[in-house]
């Protein structure tokens, strides 16, 4: 027991009450988003422990992402896949553990900066060596199947959720707190306009392109999800061009949304979340987690999480003090 307590000295209520109330404040929006990101990393880490990842199939899957990429991109991918093929158990164990540690680091407040920084480096590495730069250079990337690569969105989220506050005017949304509103809006615009571009690629607007993409997700899924996929695939059969145009229009609206006044911005962000959910359910079959062999949750949840970071906030974001582990450094 402390000396003060032992002596029976009681501090004034007001001082303690204020300190207590401040310290006991509820998690702010940015911290909640960080925790969601940590949860996704943890799920990824657990997925990486699946039996498939310890088999030759994993290295073959990685090698497959070299296909269609320029030589300068493909060569390191092939080298990495060969390395993993020869040391699959050791390296995959390390990969899985790294992701679990990233999750724990983000969730543990004193280490949130280190973990977020490490997650950016890790995500960039995986984007190249594990996802072939999201296949964005191959002409086969599509927003429906995870372009521009789910893992690059992890890195983007880590930047936008960095526990610091940009000097200047109060942030209009959480993503602007660390990098400022202009940079955050520019990043949003680049991402969503890139999705517009991918949606309109020739390979994606072919009559059966979307149908084939969705139907291809059925394999190994539970019956109800396979049935949903079959239904969705039949809806867009021979409608590739129309579906691509509709998707592109929706993506353009979303891209412009963060430049609109808050009420309109919220509407476009809801559209983004709904679209992300539709993509995740029908195009990505919930990351194919239930089929086994998924290394991550794919892009759907990350796009939704990203949209939430741009949700307009009424009060200045910087007003929430000392919650996020920022004060630990």
């Amino acid at each position, binding site marked *: 027991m402390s000396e003060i307590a032992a002596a029976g000295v009681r501090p004034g209520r007001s001082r303690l009450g204020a300190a*207590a109330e401040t310290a006991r404040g509820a998690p702010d929006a940015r911290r909640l988003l960080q925790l969601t990101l940590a949860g996704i990393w*943890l799920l990824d880490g657990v997925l990486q422990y699946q039996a498939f990842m310890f088999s030759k199939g994993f290295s073959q899957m990685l090698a497959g992402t070299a296909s269609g990429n320029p030589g300068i991109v493909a060569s390191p991918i092939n080298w990495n896949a060969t390395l993993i093929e020869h040391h699959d158990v050791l390296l995959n164990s390390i990969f899985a553990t790294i992701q679990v540690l990233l999750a724990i680091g983000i969730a543990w407040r004193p280490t949130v900066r280190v973990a977020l920084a490490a997650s950016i480096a890790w995500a960039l590495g995986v984007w190249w060596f594990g996802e072939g730069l999201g296949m964005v250079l191959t002409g086969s990337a599509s927003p429906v199947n995870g372009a521009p690569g789910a893992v690059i969105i992890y890195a983007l989220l880590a930047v936008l959720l960095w526990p610091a506050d940009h000097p200047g005017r109060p942030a209009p949304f959480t993503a602007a707190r660390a990098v400022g509103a202009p940079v955050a809006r520019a990043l949003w615009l680049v991402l969503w306009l890139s999705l517009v571009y991918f949606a309109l690629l020739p390979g994606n607007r072919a009559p059966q392109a979307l149908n084939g993409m969705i139907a291809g997700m059925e394999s190994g899924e539970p019956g109800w999800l396979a049935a949903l996929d079959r239904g969705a695939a039949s809806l867009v059969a021979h409608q590739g061009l129309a579906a691509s145009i509709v998707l592109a229009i929706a993506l353009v609206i979303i891209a412009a949304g963060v430049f609109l006044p808050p009420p309109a911005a919220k509407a476009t962000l809801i559209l983004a979340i709904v679209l992300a959910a539709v993509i995740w359910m029908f195009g990505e079959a919930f990351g194919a987690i239930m089929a086994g062999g998924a290394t991550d949750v794919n892009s759907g949840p990350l796009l939704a999480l990203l949209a939430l970071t741009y949700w307009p906030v009424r009060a200045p974001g910087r007003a929430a003090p000392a919650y996020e582990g920022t004060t630990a450094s």
Partner: protein
Amino acid sequence: MIPSWILDIFAAIMLVVAAVSAGRLVAARSWQRGTGRAALADIDVAHLLMAIAMAGMLAASLQTLPNGAWSVIFAVMTAWFGYRVVRDSRVTGIRALAGGHCAPHLVHAGAMLYMFMAFMAPAAHGSGGMSGMGAGMSGMGTLQLPTLALLFALALVGYSIWDLDQLSGPGASGHYSLAAARVAPPGPVLAGVGATAAAAGPGAAGVSPAASATVATEPLAEPVARPAEIALVPPASGPANGTGLLAPWVATGCRIAMGITMAFMLVIMI
């Protein structure tokens, strides 16, 4: 196939959790009889049983009871924590699910029950019986209703992340307190504040160094606990705010370890 040494590591972690939980039960009974400790004993009993069961699922050599017996145990445990969550929710409403400490145990117990009920051993290993689950896990047994497995895994991941966050900073209630491991004040305390202030450094959260020290060690003149804390945290003089093995953060740490391990098991058996 997952290398057996990975399963063994997780099994070893579960054995540590079981040992810690058993130690907490023994310590509480020996030194803290009649101080309200019984109010939280069910948590340690649950941790102990779940950890033993999971160790057996991960390593066949550690199996103790038939799958059917474990199913009965976890059915009872699920019902018990379901009852406690309902009881808490009468006081705290929806916060009993989000912030209470019985809801995670309800999910844990439910997930264990689901794993034992839905497990399908691979054909090569037969089905059920003493060796069904452990042998099945290393031999890639699967679970029926994989959607349910995913939902349980998501909930477990969510609770584990939330626990880690709460354990490492302010906003903590009694069962998250790191500070309580260092002091055992005579009255209700705002547990966790001191730990966070110490971790965050002087001046954090608007708390001056002097105030931080005071908050970390002093009982409040008038407790400001939320309804959930009033309902869930036993008297501060009890061992729930004890030291060493009985510190609340030890139980939360066990819960985090079990939550992550359980999510791992669910995912690899989908």
